[in-house]
């Protein structure tokens, strides 16, 4: 018999960010009646801002029902909240241009944010599954948001079908673990050994590898990243990937796996790094290019998982997400009315026409490529410095030269090629400018004062 304890005050307080998100969703639904776009944006912004601030100010570990709010989960919730905040700001003008300005966009995004918070804090597999499904389903719909465009629908249906098959596998794995240990709590995972337990965790891994976009299940990443709307791709590349990676880390840290399992992860990491960087070299469309580079970064995170220290992975997550948020925000501004600028041919010489945006893009791209002064390098350095498997690290560094080649090709394209014909002047709206400066500030802070980030993660 499961008796229900009374909820203490700080348990309730721990639930505050989740509650605020849900309440915001309800308010926006009501506001939808007035057909004015501003209030729903404001509510969404304040909700996500609240999530960020509240998560950062929380302390200690609190466990409520099946959730366990500890330091790391708060950081990732804050990160996802920040991603949502920036996505709202950046996509506001974008939706006007695409004439798709409906309040449902904010609702679905907030719902996915709520799902992610559930995932981050989950201590029970079923709650984790509910969080994953809540996030995924709202993202499926968001991908198909611009119903009229063929690419969106195609990407959405692909993402939906593959996603739901992966969830089915995930669920099936959960049932095996339930069979092996009798409960779905993370604490029970440690006892999940023998046929049933390992098979169950194997299936869980299938689900997670799909959600993170790591090979052998990364077929969907390029198509969906290219099909979806640009701000949404940014949100997926940063927040969705961060939440799923963090969930995978929490599951793996709480279960003891035999060596051959880690070889599987090692294979996935190597495949991701090599595939991501190599294919990125051949891409001409910018969105597809950054899709492959995100696969490569998933590979680095998998490598981090092998290293064992989860705080190092979180630091890398934060650094990567911030950089990719920045990149995709600029892509959103670049895309303009008809997504024309997003191919390397048309975007040649972009840096010369728009020095400020070009400069920001170079900064974010250099951070992604791991160029020293910026946060990307620091992320990679602290991820690998305590990794025992040196040959793997050497391989990762050498494969990142392929990545560097791809990024440098992009810089060359931006600065050293002559623009073809007249390039439409890109105006940066106030909201987007504020979001970009926020992202830039965060990244530069992490570049020059990285110890603050580490203290935040370990200390809190």
């Amino acid at each position: 018999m499961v008796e229900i304890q009374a909820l203490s005050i700080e348990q309730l307080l721990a639930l505050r960010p989740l509650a605020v998100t849900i309440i915001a969703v309800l308010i926006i639904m009501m506001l939808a009646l007035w057909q004015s776009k501003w209030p729903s944006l404001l509510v969404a912004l304040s909700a996500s801002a609240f999530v960020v601030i509240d998560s950062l100010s929380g302390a200690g570990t609190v466990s409520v029902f099946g959730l366990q709010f500890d330091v790391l989960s708060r950081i990732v919730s804050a990160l996802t909240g920040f991603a949502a905040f920036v996505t709202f700001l950046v996509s506001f003008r974008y939706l006007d241009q695409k004439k798709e300005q409906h309040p449902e966009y904010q609702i679905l995004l907030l719902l996915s944010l709520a799902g992610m918070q559930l995932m981050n804090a989950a201590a029970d597999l079923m709650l984790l599954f509910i969080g994953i499904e809540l996030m995924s389903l709202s993202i499926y719909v968001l991908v198909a948001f611009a119903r009229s465009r063929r690419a969106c629908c195609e990407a959405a249906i692909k993402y939906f079908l593959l996603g739901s098959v992966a969830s089915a596998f995930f669920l099936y794995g959960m049932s095996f673990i339930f069979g092996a240990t009798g409960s779905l709590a993370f604490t029970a995972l440690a006892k999940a050994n023998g046929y049933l337990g390992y098979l169950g965790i194997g299936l869980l891994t299938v689900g997670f590898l799909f959600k993170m976009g790591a090979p052998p299940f990364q077929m969907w990443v390029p198509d969906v990243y290219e099909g979806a709307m640009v701000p949404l791709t940014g949100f997926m590349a940063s927040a969705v990937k961060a939440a799923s990676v963090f969930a995978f880390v929490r599951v793996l840290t709480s279960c003891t796996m035999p060596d051959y399992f880690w070889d599987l992860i090692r294979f996935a990491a190597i495949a991701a790094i090599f595939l991501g960087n190599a294919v990125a070299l051949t891409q001409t469309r910018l969105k597809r290019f950054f899709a492959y580079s995100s696969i490569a970064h998933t590979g680095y995170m998998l490598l981090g998982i092998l290293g064992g220290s989860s705080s190092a992975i979180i630091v890398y997550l934060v650094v990567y997400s911030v950089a990719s948020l920045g990149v995709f925000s600029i892509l959103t501004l670049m895309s303009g009315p008809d997504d024309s600028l997003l191919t390397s041919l048309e975007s040649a010489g972009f840096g010369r026409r728009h020095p400020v945006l070009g400069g920001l893009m170079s900064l974010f791209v250099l951070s992604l490529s791991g160029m020293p002064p910026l946060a990307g390098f620091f992320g990679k350095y602290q991820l690998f410095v305590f990794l025992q498997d040196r040959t793997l690290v050497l391989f990762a560094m050498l494969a990142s030269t392929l990545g560097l080649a791809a990024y440098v090709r992009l810089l060359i394209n931006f600065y050293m090629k002559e623009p073809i014909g007249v390039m439409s002047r890109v105006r940066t709206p106030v909201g987007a400018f504020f979001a970009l400066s926020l992202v830039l500030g965060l990244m530069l802070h992490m570049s020059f004062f990285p110890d603050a980030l580490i203290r935040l993660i370990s200390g809190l």
Partner: protein
Amino acid sequence: MQLAFLCFLPFLASIFNGFWYLFAKKPWKMAAGVVSTLALFTSFCLASALAFHDVTFSLPWIATGSFELPFVLRLDHLSSIFVLVITGVGTLIHIYATVYMAHDSGIQKFFAYLSLFCGSMLVLVLGGSLPILFCGWEGVGLCSYLLISFWFDDSEKAKAGAKAFIVNRIGDVGFLLGMFVLFQACGSLDIETLTHAQLSPTTVLIACSLLFFACTGKSAQIPLYIWLPDAMAGPTPVSALIHAATMVTSGVYLVTRLHVLFDAAESLHIVMATVGGVTAFVAATIALVQDDIKKVLAYSTVSQLGYLFLACGVGAYEAAVFHVVTHAFFKALLFLAAGSVIHGMDGEQNMWKMGGLKKAMPVTFATFTLGWLAICGIPPFSGFFSKDEILFHTFTSGHTGLWALGLVTACMTAFYMTRLYIVTFLGTKHTHAHESSWGMLAPLCVLACLSALGGIFGHMISHTLAFHAEAESSQLEWILMLVSACIAGLGIALAFFMYDESRQPIRARIQKQYGWLSTALAHAWYVDEAIDLVLLKPLRQIYGFVWRTIDVLCIDGFIMLLASGGRASGDVLRLIQPGFLHISIACMVMGAFFIMGYMVYGQL
């Protein structure tokens, strides 16, 4: 302190002239020459003041950890002789050159290079340690390059300059390696410590042979003499100063300076002697058929230098120094006289186009005669005493074969010098040539006196060197003197007989009969062409081959392979991204089954 001043004065003059040439607009014709001549003349006075005193001057130069390399100048008996010769003959040649080059546009540049040369030569001669000597050694090589290709409009002259510099550099590499061997053996490169250090015979042998190789480069001996004849492309005063009086003797100076080491390397003596003798003989044979005045004098210089190394080989260092001094006098005289002839004939150098200049240029004729007598070795003149001394020492040291070779060469020297003398000055042809001005003739006269009296005066100086106890066996000496005087007379008579106007048909018959020999001699035994064929052509092939294969093919090829490999793998991996939905799902399911199987299989 005066020693430093003596050495650095020419450098100052060179810098002054250089800046004047580059930056001043209206050059006053004679000023550059005057500045350089004054500088060298003051050096000469200082040198004569300091002569034969032991003076040293040192400045800190390179000092890293234990290795100390100060800039040391040391004047002692031997180097003061050389300094006097350099500054004395140098000043005379400077005066001559001021007039000779008066009409040339780049006169400041010429005198800048000339002073730079004298400065480097003084550093070479006064150098206290081998690296300082080496600095002078290469500085002199640089100036000879700059001066040979002074008239750089004609690319032939520029190539001759480059050839001289590169051949010298080959010798310099030998010098470097010799220095390293010595440094490794005795830890210091100072000449004093080297002469007193106990070194194992093998290191001494290796070091001395390397240094000797360097001397052959600088003093134009057998393997590396090819650059001297081409060096005649430079202006005549340059040929006189550098390629007759001073630079070419630096090899002999190095050997005499390190004579203690060279004495210790016994097996090297015979090599040096034979190289010297053979060079003398071969150069003399080539000089027999040359038509260009300066080429004849160039080959005669090579052969006289051969004598010097013959003397060093047999251990007669005093004789060598004595011959250097006298050779400097009469060879400089001959070159300057030839220069004034060329000047008079407006640049014509082929002696067959001259003739009968006796009347047109009386003073030049008179001074040339004195020089001619001196070089042939006619008794009262300086050439006789120094050459005879060398032959005497060769004979007494038991190398009779080399003595005979030396004697034959002496005869040939007399023959070709007289041939030159007759064809240019005597004879009935009336070629119009204007006598040079007194600025050029005065140095000629001074040099004529020196080469006439030099014999007695030089004999006295060189004997003061007294490296070895002088065994005076006067009776044998008188006989040998007589023999060499007769040989010289024979040579002259033969030449008079052969090259008299009336003997034209006999000459034609000999020409027909030994035609092949004279063409071979004219082309200097085809040595240049041989070296070009055997060494330079294959080297040029190698350079091209090395670049094309290693750089372009191997390294770049490998890198391009890697780069295209990266790109190709990208393209291949891109192809496995199925656009079709059902293929994606199929791949996904296969992946899932693989993982499930792997987990179960792993369990076994």
